[in-house]
């Protein structure tokens, strides 16, 4: 039977028992469309509308002024430079280390694998904070130390530059490529390489001609992730760039709105810039698609194989040390720096024991704002995680199994926020939910942050559930039907239990990044609705750097604890 034969199955099942009671499939489809309309479509429509219309009249003027403003154009070029730089370098680095850990006989592989996932958990804006403390062009600790030791005229390294931003982004984004490629390498059929060797290819020829082309789809997917994340990223460029007047589009949008004091005009300008950012993202996606159009190869098997490892021989120890050095540089050094600064009595004092105190922690924890921010973040991330987990699974089920008319629309709409920068999404959410539609005003409440998180993270859970549903062959649910289960029972007894592990990991995939979110919340927070990330950001912004570092230390602690729990929870999956 052709695949087509199975496709319309659930739709037909629905038709079969549709006459008697409410058609569950139709209800689920309806819910999907309505929720996606509210969560995703309305904010996006509001941005476009407000960028071009003012009080119901078409007004291109504001948009064209914004588009030609040299400051904005400058920001656009910076955004592109940083994104392209971070993507190219991050991809190279990711592929290199993936190969080193996946295919060579480098020592302590298991441990190294685990360690190389840490930069992924590490919030990039905290990394940026740490690097700023060390290599700030005016006051960086290591800079000052280098000047005094080597009697230099000026600060040797200036992290507050486009290259500085690229460096920090590469440090925390290369795992996107690394993780994709490592798993592709591990699932690759080793005989493909072995036959090339037998056919007379040398080792390096095998790597270039066989291995790399085969993992190209994985590289491409990872690179795409770096590109879109970097284009939309707020934290690093804002921490490193502000001081020197280096803006990217997301930080520029924030500045425009911040400077206008949150007025409607400011938000409209932000909307115009958002359209610009979306255009840049789309262009970048098209470009990326041209350069790295991913072929689909079926030779990568689902089950894991034992790949042949390449002997590094003399290069083994140097490469091992290089990997260790990389980890120390991008994880340990910033971490130590943040912890050290958090103990300082005042920022700028030398890092000596006599200047250390626990006062910053006391201050942080006695301030209401801190506790509030942790509570807000927990509430918003857990709620967003749970809601997205169910909604994403619902959308995935409708798209994959029910296949209603317009499922393509559903699919595109739910994946849209994935390509739309968090900053842009926040502006859409502000425009949509500050009283203009049905008088619903969520501005300055935690709900507006929650709505933005839902839009931003829905695609995450939808993707994982979708992948899991693909594995659940429709005959499993059909077998239940034939065994006497109703449509609902089949869903509850068979399909849901089978995708439960994917749903749980979908939850954590949302919960963890949402806990340390800054990009979206920075535009949405009100006096009592700061999130953890926003609180750290504003403490630092207000010059209370040691306090910010103390809270950052706490945040990192929370993330490590949560991550440990996650790995334990998701480790053992029954049966599936």
């Amino acid at each position, binding site marked *: *039977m*052709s695949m*087509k*034969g199975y496709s*319309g*199955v659930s739709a*037909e*099942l629905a*038709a*079969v*028992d549709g*006459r008697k009671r409410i058609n569950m499939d139709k209800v689920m489809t309806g819910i999907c469309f309505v929720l996606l309309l509210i969560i995703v479509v309305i904010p996006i429509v509001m941005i476009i509308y407000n960028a071009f219309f003012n009080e119901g009249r078409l007004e291109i003027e504001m948009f064209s002024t914004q588009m030609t403003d040299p400051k904005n154009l400058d920001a656009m070029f910076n955004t592109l430079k940083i994104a392209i730089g971070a993507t190219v370098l991050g991809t190279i680095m990711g592929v290199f280390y993936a190969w080193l850990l996946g295919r060579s006989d480098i020592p302590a592989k298991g441990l190294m694998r685990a360690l190389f996932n840490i930069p992924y958990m590490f919030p990039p804006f905290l990394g940026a904070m740490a690097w700023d403390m060390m290599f700030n062009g005016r006051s960086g600790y290591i800079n000052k130390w280098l000047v005094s030791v080597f009697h230099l005229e000026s600060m040797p390294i200036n992290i507050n530059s486009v290259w500085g931003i690229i460096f920090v982004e590469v440090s925390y984004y290369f795992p996107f490529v690394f993780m994709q490629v490592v798993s592709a390498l591990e699932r690759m059929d080793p005989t493909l390489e072995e036959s090339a060797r037998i056919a007379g290819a040398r080792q390096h020829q095998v790597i270039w001609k066989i291995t790399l082309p085969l993992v190209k789809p994985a590289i491409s997917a990872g690179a795409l992730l770096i590109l879109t994340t970097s284009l939309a990223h707020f934290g690093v460029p804002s921490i490193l760039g502000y001081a020197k007047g280096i803006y990217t589009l997301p930080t520029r949008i924030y500045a425009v709105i911040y400077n206008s004091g949150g007025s409607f005009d400011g938000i409209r300008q932000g909307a115009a810039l958002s359209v610009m950012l979306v255009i840049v993202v789309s262009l970048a996606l098209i470009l990326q698609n041209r350069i790295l159009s991913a072929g689909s190869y079926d030779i990568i098997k689902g089950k894991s194989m034992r790949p042949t490892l390449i002997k590094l021989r003399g290069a083994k120890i140097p490469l091992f040390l290089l990997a260790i050095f990389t980890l120390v540089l991008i994880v340990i050094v910033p971490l130590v720096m943040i912890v050290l600064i958090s103990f300082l009595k005042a920022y700028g004092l030398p890092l000596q024991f006599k200047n250390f105190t626990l006062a910053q922690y006391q201050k942080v924890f006695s301030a209401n704002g801190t506790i509030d921010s942790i509570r807000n973040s927990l509430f918003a991330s857990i709620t967003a995680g749970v809601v997205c987990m169910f909604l994403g699974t619902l959308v995935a089920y409708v798209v994959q199994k029910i296949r209603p008319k317009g499922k393509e629309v559903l699919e595109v709409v739910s994946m849209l926020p994935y390509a739309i920068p968090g900053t842009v999404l926040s502006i859409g959410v502000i425009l949509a939910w500050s009283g203009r539609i049905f008088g619903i005003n969520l501005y300055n409440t935690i709900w507006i942050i929650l709505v933005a998180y839902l839009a931003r993270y829905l695609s995450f859970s939808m993707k994982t559930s979708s992948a899991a549903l693909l594995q659940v*062959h429709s*005959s*499993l649910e*059909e*077998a*239940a*039907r*034939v*065994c*006497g*289960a*109703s449509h609902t*029972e089949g869903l509850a*007894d*068979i399909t849901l*239990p*089978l995708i439960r592990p994917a749903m749980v990991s979908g939850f954590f995939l949302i919960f963890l990044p949402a806990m340390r979110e800054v990009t979206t919340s920075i535009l949405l927070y009100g006096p009592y609705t700061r999130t953890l990330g926003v609180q750290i950001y504003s403490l630092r912004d207000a010059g209370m750097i040691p306090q910010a570092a103390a809270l950052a230390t706490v945040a990192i602690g929370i993330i490590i604890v949560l991550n440990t729990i996650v790995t334990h929870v998701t480790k053992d999956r*029954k*049966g*599936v």
Partner: protein
Amino acid sequence: MANVKFENITFRYGQNTVLDNFSLEVESGKIVCLVGPSGCGKTTLVRCLLGLGKPETGSITVGERCLFDAKRRINVPAEKRNIGIVFQDYAVWPHMTVLENVSYPLKKQRRPKDEIHKRAMHALEQVHMTEYANHLPNQLSGGQQQRVAIARAIVVDSDVLVMDEPITNLDAKLREEMLLEIRMIQKRLGATILYITHDQQSALQLCDKMAIMEQDGTLCQYGTDDEIILRPANRFTFEFIGVSNFLPVMPSGSGFALDCGTLFPYDGEVPPQAQKGGYELGVRPNDVIFDNTSPIRAKVDSRVFLGSEYNYFLSVGDRQIRVQQSMLDARQRGTAAEGEEVGIRFLNTRFYPAKKGGQAA
């Protein structure tokens, strides 16, 4: 136990008509094999029977009960049809143990707990799987999962048991065993079994009756296995059900000749419709015999001894045919050596219109 009646079933996927006015009646208490090439609509037909697909026209009845009728707008939902199914890919639920899998249909019937356990264990006993009751499916081999699927299908007293290519994923030995076991189970239960396969060999081993479906979804013959082997309704059945040789026949002078590049006079009988040409003579490999007095000359390309028979490939002009010679025949008439030229004669010949580009299979 009940008979199954499909009447005038039409089923389409979009523009693609899979079944067009299809009718078939399966007698009660028999194993009936539905045989046809991949993609001919066997699975679609079964899905309609199960209630997993909805035909555009026609009706389906099992025993006295109408399950589907397009005109009367009857469509019994899948869960209320009381039909057992063994899916091609087993569809054993991976998150449930073997026992939980087999108990599920009974649970859905809200039976008391101890009855569920007793009947599930009994079903497992019948497929010799009791010792695996608490295993998860991923701890079982393909053949064992197969048995679980069968146990799940027979645990409730279904009117009909449907098996959709259940043994294609097994190795040859296991396949043989499973076929025997299915036969035994049918004897014990007395159920009507509708067995779907594209493999005529296993169909022959298993069935009481066979229904042959053509590629376009039409039923071309329904009958007992020897009927189908000995009196194939058309060229499709003849070709599909075994190995076949075809040689073009044409009028030549006052008689007939086989046109294989060179003409060989053919002195056998030719039915009237084939006398004007455009027909081919079809013959099974074991119906070709060596006879050096025959004007039809062939060269032996290869000879393989298979234990109970010899298998030859012969060139007849520019055609190649396959010949099977039983040991008995080999003793009586002697064998032919590779490279030797022999005369051949045909028994049990059939004549079918020539296919375009038709060749000996």
